[in-house]
Structures are given as structure tokens and as C-alpha cells.
């Protein structure tokens, strides 16, 4: 027994080493001084800074909740602005790294408690925790890792009643409340935990303990949002819906859900295995993963099974609410981890069954499993290396365009009224009030955005300068080109005169955008002038 416990301790230590190596592998080329790979991470920084300076948790001090996708993450970020003053990207990384390490360790502990064999549990936790796309969330500056950690912790507390059953149930409820404040859609985990109740040896009344804090958080959130914006839903939802789906205005929910699944197929193939989705390897791992899911439920691994059920439910929730993977897959961050973790479960099962039949020597069986791990680890290692370049280029791109444009905006006269579609780097370094053309701050701008007609808004707000993301070709209406998408080409009594165009090189932009979907290659600053 003692020897087995020692083996599990070693497994935790080795997993920690692998997690640290994976993090280093992606982060090694990039300096934290240069910020984040996504402009949205800078939006969190503005919200955090506003909270630290004014006590209002919102993008602007006038509007609570504005542009705040994650109230909990923005509050954490605010601690740095209030008390520490570290580089924003370094602080976000340190917090996320702790969450990342904790998550991987909890996954291994869950599989251990579920009764999975050591080699299966360790491999599954290791492949899940070092899935390159998943590791990158630690460096993204976003709330994704917080969501994964809190989900995992809530599931652990719920499925592990232990000696202090009631206390753990209340702790689970508080974790769920924090999870809801991290991302409101994650409140759906409450339903998953309720579904898992019959297998947890818990009493029905424990549901009250987990539901009560969660409902308090929901009520508080809805009430404060309704007070501040007139709508209880997250203020960013409608703006994001338009941004993601303007290219398919008449697509129905099934078509959008299909597109989302196809996006994940592409993403998992290219950014978890470093192959094309036309390649055989992706389909092999998918098949092994689906089989692995069967094994998890067949063996009644309730802890890991609940995590798996949560991963699938989270995707389903997004299919209904906002059917997209988000930048770099950040909306459903469990997906790449579960894909590879379950892939190992499937592969381990097949190899173990075959070797039990054909390989009599126990030592040879161990060698076979090690060989399998090396074989499966090769694409992960290759993908981690590819992500290091993608992350570097994404950070460079955001720094060279969004942040650089922010500094341009800061240098405009104080009398200027500036409207901008991107409000992260531009807002953080512009250090002035912006009219948000992406409808994240003010949901009343949604109609103008949906109708591709912001001219009336620009006139009404007496806007003097406009910043819009564009593609490399100004006259090509690709999804990056917000000159067209916002209807700035339409006839008007005013015209736009370009003052400054800031672009990344195509190579840098492309390598970053393929992995992270960070944003447009070009930012253009226009001055609004009357038509001659």
C-alpha cells in the first residue's frame, strides 16, 4: 500500500514537471513586457484598472459590467493594479499558471480516486494537461484557466464527499458561484452536478447547499446588470454574436452548431496535434477519445466522468448561446484537454487488452505502454513548439498594432472624440474615453452594428476620429475589414480621411491568427471630415 502511494506521489511530481515544461515550451520565445496575444485580454486589464481606480467593475466608471466578460477575472486583475503594479501579462500569467498546475494535479487525483490504473490515470492527466492549445490558455491573459480550475474544483468537491460532506457541499456551492461570476454560462455546471448526484453517495439536501450560493450569485449578477444596463444578460453577448455570425446572417441554429463542430475539428487537428484535419491522425485520436469516453462511463469513474459530462455540456450550451470556439478556442477550454486525455484512455485500453493476450512478460507490457506514450507524445511536443511561435507572433502583432494604435490615440488632442471597434490595447494605452463600435460597452449600439450603419451614431456623438480594424486590402470585405462591416463605405454627409495605418507583416499576422484568431492585421485611424 505504501509503495503504491509513493508511486502516486511520484506521478504527481512527474506531472508537475511535465506541466512546467509545457508552459516553458510555449512561453520561451516571448517577453511578458510585450503584453498579451489577444486584444480581449487588454479589455480585462482596462476593466481591472477601472475597478482599482474607481471601485466600479466595468470598462467605464459610468457603467457597471460594461465590456466585462468575466467579473471574477477582472476583479483578480484589479488586485495587481491596486496593490502590486506588476507587468499585466506577467501577473495574469502567474495567476493562470497556479490555476493550470492545480487543475492538472486535480485531474490526476480524480482519476486516482476513481480507481483508474496508475499508468492510465497518469497518461490521461498528462496528455490532457499538456495539450498545447490548453496550455496556451495560461498565457492568453484571459479567464479560461480560471473557468477550468473552478469547474474542476467544484466537481472534485461534489464527487468527493469525504468526512465533511456538508462543508464540502457548501464549498462546492461557493465555487459554483465564483464560476458563474467567471463566466455566466458556466452556471450550467449546477445541472451537471445535480445529474451526477445518484453516483456521489450524497443526499438530496446537499443540492440545496450547492444551489443556494449559486442562486445568490445569479440574482446579484442579474440585478446589478439590469440596474446598470437595463438587461440582466451579459452586456457583451449581443456584440459578440454579431461579430462572430455577421457572415452568415440567415444561418439557422443547426447550421451554426455544425460550423462550430467543424471549427473544433480543424482546431484540434491543427492546434493540438499539429496536423491537418484531412490527416489520418486526427481521426484516429478522435476515435480513441470517443472510445475512451465509453471506458470512463463503463468503469463508473464518477469524478472524471462528471468532468467529461461537463465538457460536453459546456459545448452544448455554447451551441445554443454563442456557437463558436472563440479566440484560440477559449470559450470551451476543456475541449482540447479532454480530446487528448480521452485519446490516451482509448489507446491505453486497446494496447492493454492486446498485450494481455499477446505479450506474456509484464516488463514487455510496460515497455509497450511507454512506447505508446512516446508515440502519442510526439504530436503534442510538435504542437507545443508550433504554439511557441504562434504565441510569440500573436503577442508581437497585438503589441505592434493594437497597442501602437493606443499610443496614437493617446496623442490626439484632448478635445477629440474617438470611436473604435477594438477597445483593448487601444483603450488601455489610449487612456481616454472611447465610443465602442463593437457594442461591448454599450449594448444600445448593437442595432447600428447589426445594420452595418454606424454613421448616424458617429454624427450623434460628434465623433472626430474613428479607429477600425481592416484587412490587408482596404477594398476587400473580408471578415477582418470593419470599414465595410460597420458600413463606413455608405453615403454620408461626412467622409473619413486616413491619418495613420498600422499593420503587421503578413507572415507574423498569419502565424498568430491561425492559432489564436487574435484579430485583424491592420488598424486604421481616420479623421471624420465633412464631405467637400
Amino acid at each position, binding site marked *: 500500500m505504501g509503495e503504491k502511494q509513493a508511486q502516486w506521489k511520484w506521478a504527481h511530481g512527474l506531472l508537475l514537471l511535465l506541466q512546467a515544461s509545457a508552459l516553458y515550451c510555449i512561453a520561451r520565445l516571448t517577453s511578458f513586457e510585450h503584453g498579451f496575444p489577444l486584444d480581449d485580454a487588454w479589455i480585462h486589464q482596462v476593466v481591472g484598472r477601472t475597478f482599482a481606480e474607481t471601485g466600479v467593475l466595468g470598462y467605464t466608471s459610468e457603467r457597471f459590467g460594461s465590456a466585462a466578460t468575466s467579473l471574477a477575472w477582472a476583479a483578480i486583475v484589479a488586485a495587481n493594479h491596486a496593490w502590486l503594479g506588476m507587468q499585466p501579462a506577467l501577473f495574469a500569467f502567474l495567476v493562470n499558471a497556479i490555476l493550470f498546475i492545480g487543475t492538472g494535479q486535480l485531474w490526476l487525483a480524480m482519476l486516482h480516486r476513481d480507481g483508474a490504473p496508475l499508468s492510465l490515470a497518469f497518461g490521461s492527466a498528462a496528455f490532457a494537461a499538456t495539450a498545447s492549445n490548453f496550455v496556451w490558455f495560461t498565457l492568453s491573459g484571459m479567464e479560461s484557466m480560471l473557468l477550468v480550475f473552478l469547474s474542476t474544483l467544484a466537481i472534485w468537491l461534489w464527487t468527493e464527499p469525504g468526512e465533511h460532506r456538508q462543508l464540502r457541499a457548501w464549498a462546492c456551492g461557493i465555487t459554483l458561484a465564483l464560476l458563474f461570476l467567471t463566466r455566466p454560462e458556466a452556471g450550467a455546471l449546477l445541472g451537471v452536478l445535480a445529474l451526477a448526484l445518484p*453516483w456521489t453517495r450524497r443526499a438530496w439536501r446537499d443540492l440545496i447547499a450547492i444551489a443556494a450560493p449559486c442562486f445568490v450569485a445569479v440574482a446579484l449578477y442579474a440585478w446589478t446588470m439590469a440596474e446598470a444596463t437595463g438587461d440582466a444578460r451579459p452586456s457583451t453577448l449581443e456584440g459578440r454574436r454579431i461579430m462572430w455570425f*455577421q*457572415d*452568415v*446572417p*440567415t*444561418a*439557422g441554429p443547426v*447550421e451554426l*452548431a*455544425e*460550423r462550430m*463542430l*467543424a471549427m*473544433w*475539428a480543424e482546431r484540434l487537428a491543427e492546434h493540438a496535434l499539429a496536423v491537418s*484535419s*484531412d490527416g*489520418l491522425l*486526427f*481521426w*484516429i485520436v*478522435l*476515435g*480513441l477519445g*470517443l*472510445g475512451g*469516453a*465509453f*471506458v470512463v*462511463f*463503463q*468503469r*463508473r469513474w464518477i469524478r472524471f466522468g462528471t468532468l467529461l*459530462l461537463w465538457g*460536453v455540456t459546456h459545448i452544448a450550451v455554447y451551441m445554443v448561446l454563442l456557437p463558436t470556439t472563440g479566440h484560440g478556442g477559449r470559450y470551451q477550454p476543456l475541449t482540447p484537454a479532454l480530446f487528448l486525455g480521452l485519446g490516451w484512455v*482509448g489507446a491505453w*485500453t486497446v494496447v*492493454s*487488452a*492486446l498485450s*494481455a*493476450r499477446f505479450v506474456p512478460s509484464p516488463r514487455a507490457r510496460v515497455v509497450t505502454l511507454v512506447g505508446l506514450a512516446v508515440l502519442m507524445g510526439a504530436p503534442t511536443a510538435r504542437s507545443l513548439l508550433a504554439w511557441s511561435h504562434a504565441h510569440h507572433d500573436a503577442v508581437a502583432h497585438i503589441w505592434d498594432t493594437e497597442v501602437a494604435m493606443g499610443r496614437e490615440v493617446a496623442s490626439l488632442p484632448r478635445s477629440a472624440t474617438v470611436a473604435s471597434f477594438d477597445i483593448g490595447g487601444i483603450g488601455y494605452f489610449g487612456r481616454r474615453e472611447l465610443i465602442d463600435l463593437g457594442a461591448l460597452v454599450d449594448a444600445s449600439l448593437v442595432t447600428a452594428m*447589426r*445594420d*452595418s*450603419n454606424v454613421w448616424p451614431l458617429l454624427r450623434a456623438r460628434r465623433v472626430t476620429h474613428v479607429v477600425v480594424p481592416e*484587412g490587408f486590402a482596404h*477594398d*476587400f*470585405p*473580408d*471578415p477582418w*475589414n470593419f470599414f*465595410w*462591416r460597420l*458600413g463606413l*463605405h*455608405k*453615403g454620408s454627409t461626412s467622409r473619413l480621411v486616413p491619418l495613420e495605418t498600422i499593420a503587421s507583416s503578413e507572415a507574423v499576422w498569419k502565424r498568430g491568427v491561425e492559432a489564436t484568431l487574435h484579430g485583424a492585421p491592420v488598424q486604421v485611424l481616420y479623421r471624420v471630415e465633412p464631405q467637400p
Partner: protein
Amino acid sequence: MKRFSRIAMSALFFGGACIGCASPVELQDSTLESSAVQLRAAVRSGFPTQVVAYDEPLDADEALARQGARDPAVTYLVLSRTDAKIAWAASLSENPPSSEKAILGRWVVPYLRAGDRDNALKSFVFGYLLALHEAGRIEWDEALVPILPPGSLGPRSYTWGLAVSFLLMILVIWAARRLP
């Protein structure tokens, strides 16, 4: 628990099957609908325009002929799997806003070469409206549908891949039942 496993597995497999159904480069019904909406900008300014789309490797003239009698007041944007053409309305044929070659060359041909009919139609409609707009013939006030650059999407079939995944999944289930 067994039932629970089956439900979860069916849901996962349904997800996989949906991926198999998604084919991003075929002409989507939603694109045909949004193209009709986009073209209202031309219709309102007195330039009725109609899309003629065939999912076959047809010559554009043949595709147009299949339409039957043509209305001389209407401009037809013809798109088959391999060819495209603009049949100008009488009001535009004398003095078109741009040459047919210029519109097709920039906005349609690169997509047909890449086998991307969905974006070919979006781009075709955009190029045509842009020509009318730049010639000062129309007020362009419809919401714009963004278009992916040519070559962004390759033709992909997921059917064989799903078959491989399915077989592997069966293999894992078989193996799981043989392990203690």
C-alpha cells in the same frame, strides 16, 4: 449507469456526425438568401438583379439557357460549379458599371479555382454591387456580409475520417470489455 453511458456516447457520436455534415465550401441556402437581400440595394435603385446558381459543372451560357425566357429588365449573375457570367439588363448593357471581365476576374474566378462556391457567390454579389456603387448608380445601404479571401477553405470531406473514428471507437469498446 449503462444507459447513462449509452446516452453520453450517442451524444458524442452525434456531435461527430454533425462535423461530417458540415461542408463549408458548398453553396449554402443561407448564402442564396443573403445574396437576395444584398441585391435589394440594386433593385431599389432600378437595377433588378437575379442570381442563377447551378451545382453542376455547366457552361454559364447553358446554365442561363436553362432558366428559360429572360427578362430584359433584369441583370443575371450566373454561377455554375465551373463557370460564371453576367448577363446585363438592357439598361446596363450599353454602359455597364464595370467590365464583366474585371468583375469576374477579381471577385469570382479565384474562388471557383479554389472550389469554394459559397464564397464565390458572396464575392460575386459584392463585386457587382461595388461596381454599381463606384459608378454612382446605387445607394448601398444593406448590411454587408463579410467574405473569406479565396483559398481560405479547401474542399473537405469528413466522411472517411468519421468512418475511421467509428471503427477505432468500436475497437476501444471491444478492448474495454476484455479487460478486467
